[in-house]
């Protein structure tokens, strides 16, 4: 991965207090502030209907912001029509022109820019080679498989060398294996060419593996904007914690906050130590979040002085590389523990009573 710090670079794309409403009654995008550095790969991640496509369309110029300003390379672009913005775009269903061959599709953006024929052919060839589709120039889009169409769509968005490329769920229609392969190809290309990419997806794995930065959208707002590792390990609120990766939650009330330790009383009366994230004062309701792989039940491995809770094994699932054990903890029957399949690993039996524990910094007290 590239350098993930965005602070130093001047912003290439900027959203300033952008709002969008389609019907004049509800805001689909509420006060969006976002800046993307040159060369950055930013992913907008969020459930369907959270306003990701709308943001992308405003950036591309197909929707106008109801309020606020969008800047590209320091210039406001609100009044520039889409065809003059010079932004490459990959659509969800590729939108390859069915009446043109692959080569004609790729030549189209060059033609409308009045680029000479020989230059054009050269660029088309280079773009096709770049996505390893050199032999397919004469085919029609309908004669290509989904993955091949995807590559062509990518090549077409890049062939006129835009500085910014937008992709709206470009891999949504592919099967898992192809998707993983294309994820890799897209990041490779984006970084090799040094282009700025805004990528939209609702698939969190995709977002985590591809991006420099991920903006998690919900309800028309960015819930957290952070690099993938930060996002996973330090979710800023319970929505992000739930949405990214698997997560165990326990409900409780804050008893006391001492520096970077919050004492939380779970609903069954048990007291545990947590890291306070967005709780501020005693008496607040809180949702305590622990990642399944950070839970330990092997006494020998538990850290000295770690707090332990009683748990009952409900289910043991063998998943090959890992074991997934479902427990009942403090009244929550969906509490999951993931353990690596190592030679010395214990396989728990349903009905077994065990003690579980974790490090206080892995246990985050979030909003309820």
């Amino acid at each position, binding site marked *: 991965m590239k350098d993930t710090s965005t602070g130093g670079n001047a912003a290439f794309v900027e959203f300033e207090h952008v709002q969008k409403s389609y019907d004049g009654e509800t805001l689909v995008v509420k006060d969006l502030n976002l800046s993307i550095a040159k060369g950055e790969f930013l992913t907008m991640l969020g459930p369907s209907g959270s306003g990701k496509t709308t943001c992308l369309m405003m950036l591309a110029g197909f929707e106008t912001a109801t309020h606020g300003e969008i800047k590209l390379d320091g210039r406001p672009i609100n009044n520039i029509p889409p*065809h003059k913005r010079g932004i490459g775009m990959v659509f969800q269903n590729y939108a390859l022109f069915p009446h043109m061959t692959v080569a004609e599709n790729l030549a*189209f953006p060059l033609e409308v820019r009045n680029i000479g024929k020989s230059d054009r052919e050269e660029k088309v060839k280079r773009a096709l080679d770049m996505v390893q589709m050199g032999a397919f120039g004469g085919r029609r889009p309908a004669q290509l498989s989904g993955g091949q169409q995807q590559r062509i769509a990518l090549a077409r968005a890049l062939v006129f060398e835009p500085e910014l490329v937008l992709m709206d769920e470009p891999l949504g229609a592919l099967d898992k294996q192809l998707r993983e392969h294309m994820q890799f190809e897209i990041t490779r290309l984006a970084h090799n060419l040094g282009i700025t990419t805004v990528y939209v997806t609702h698939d969190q794995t995709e977002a985590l593996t591809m991006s420099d930065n991920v903006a998690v959208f919900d309800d028309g707002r960015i819930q957290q904007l952070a690099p993938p590792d930060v996002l996973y390990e330090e979710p800023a609120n319970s929505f992000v914690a739930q949405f990214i990766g698997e997560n165990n939650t326990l409900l409780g009330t804050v008893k006391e906050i001492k520096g970077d330790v919050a004492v939380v009383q779970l609903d069954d009366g048990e007291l545990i130590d947590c890291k306070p994230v967005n709780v501020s004062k005693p008496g607040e309701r809180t949702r305590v979040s622990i990642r399944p792989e950070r839970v330990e039940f092997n006494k020998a491995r538990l850290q000295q002085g770690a707090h332990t809770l009683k748990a009952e094994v409900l289910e043991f699932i063998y998943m090959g590389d890992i074991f997934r054990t479902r427990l009942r903890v403090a009244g929550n029957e969906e509490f999951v523990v993931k353990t690596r399949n190592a030679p010395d690993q214990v396989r728990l039996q349903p009905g077994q009573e065990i003690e579980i524990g974790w490090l206080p910094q892995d246990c985050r007290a979030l909003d309820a």
Partner: protein
Amino acid sequence: MSDTTQNGPMRAADGTPLKKSLARALRRQKLRALALIAPLLIFVLVTFIAPIADMLFRSVQNDIVADTLPRTVVALKDWDSTSGESPGEEVFSALAVDFQAAAEQKIHTKLGSRLNYENPGISSLFRKTGRGAEDIGDAFMDQFVDANAAWKDSETWAGLMGSDEWLAEQAEWVAAKAEGVKEPKFRLRDGIADALPRTSSTYATFARDTQSGTKSLVKTKPWPVFFVALAQDLATASPEVIASVSGDGAALLQEAAATAAGFEPFDYKAAFTDIDKGWDNVGNWITVQSYSARYTPGYFLNAVDLEKSPDGIQARPEQQQIYIKLFVRTMWMSMLITGCCLLLGYPVAWILANLRASTANVLMILVLLPFWTSLLVRTSAWKVLLQQQGVINDILVWLGLVDDGNRLVMINNQFGTIVAMTHILLPFMILPLYSVMKTVPPAYLRAAKSLGATPWTAFWRVYFPQSVPGIGAGSILCFILAIGYYITPELVGGTQGVFISNRIAFHISSSLNWGLAAALGTILLGAVLLLYYVYDKIVGIDNVKLG
């Protein structure tokens, strides 16, 4: 080939060649499918294919001359039309018998109307002759009857001409008086055809025609032409031959032979020219001879303003040339109407396809509204709008754009037809366009714009090519409907704005020249098929989508 491996043809599990067992399996499927669509297929055959086949047939069929004047047609074969003289006695004697038979059945006027299409004026000749021809031979009849009153009786003739067995059967039939049983079929006496060739063949015709109805031979008055034929037969036959005739009438015949010896020879040609001079006219005979074949290209020639003449096929006189002009007009006006429909319909379809579903549905009802109104009402509405004292002229005059004295003529001409037809055919353009445009995702336009195309380039290079199948379907539909339309041109077209179909309708319902109507229809059908073929070659018929 895919069905052969190195070890020969691929085989199914039971050892039959795979290709064969596949064909068998498919055949069963096909038969079942065929059985399912059989009722529809039969319906289509009966209601669609059969009328077209009938039309094609009628456009060349020409039985009427050979059926009405069978003897004349045969006799006329040897006549040389270039000789400059009307045919000889033989033809006229055949004509006399044919006319007698035709006048009896009153079909000579039909033949007259038929030939009138080819030779205007000939129908009056036939009508007039029909009245006169029944009297040909009256003078001879009177002389025979004066000599022996028995010649007046039909029984005398039947007894002379009919065979003995037939006479016996006939007598039985008369005695039985059975209801609904037809008179026994007439048979000629042995040897009579040799003895009295003209008389017997004329009588045979008489017998056939009479018996084809419900009349009895012994109750039907003899034709006067019998007596002419008899006189001629008696004049040429030797006494021995006449004596050889058997039966009850033998004695009478002997006696008649003596009577007839004193007769003047009969001149059929003079008799006919007395009735109407037209029979001496070579042109009339050429018409009869040209159209005596059972199949004729005449209707087709007529439909393209040509005619047969002794010097071969040639153009009709200037003032009779109307059909080519009408065909050309029908074609270009239909193309213009289709073009107008496309120009007006394309934006409408585009708006419909890009609006929200609820709004689009309301607008769609407006597009379909004309279908709920009678065609006549819609066309008449245009009369109200376009006529000289109509709404549009009134408004223009009121606005001062047009002088009251010089009101615009917008109806009963080509303009009226184009306006009204465009209005009526517009939905047929909009609907296929709409259904094709509906399937073009808006993402294509966005993609084109994101790639740097101006809105116009995006439309022209990306959207338009994808709507071509709809344009093709709509244009074919509109054009084919337009060239066959006739109500609207009839009502608002005046003389300058009518189509070939109005002529076809005229020939079917007014002039009753169905053969010409069929030929015109066939040419129209051929033109449509030709255009369809050209379209297929240029655009490709796969490129037509109705939805």
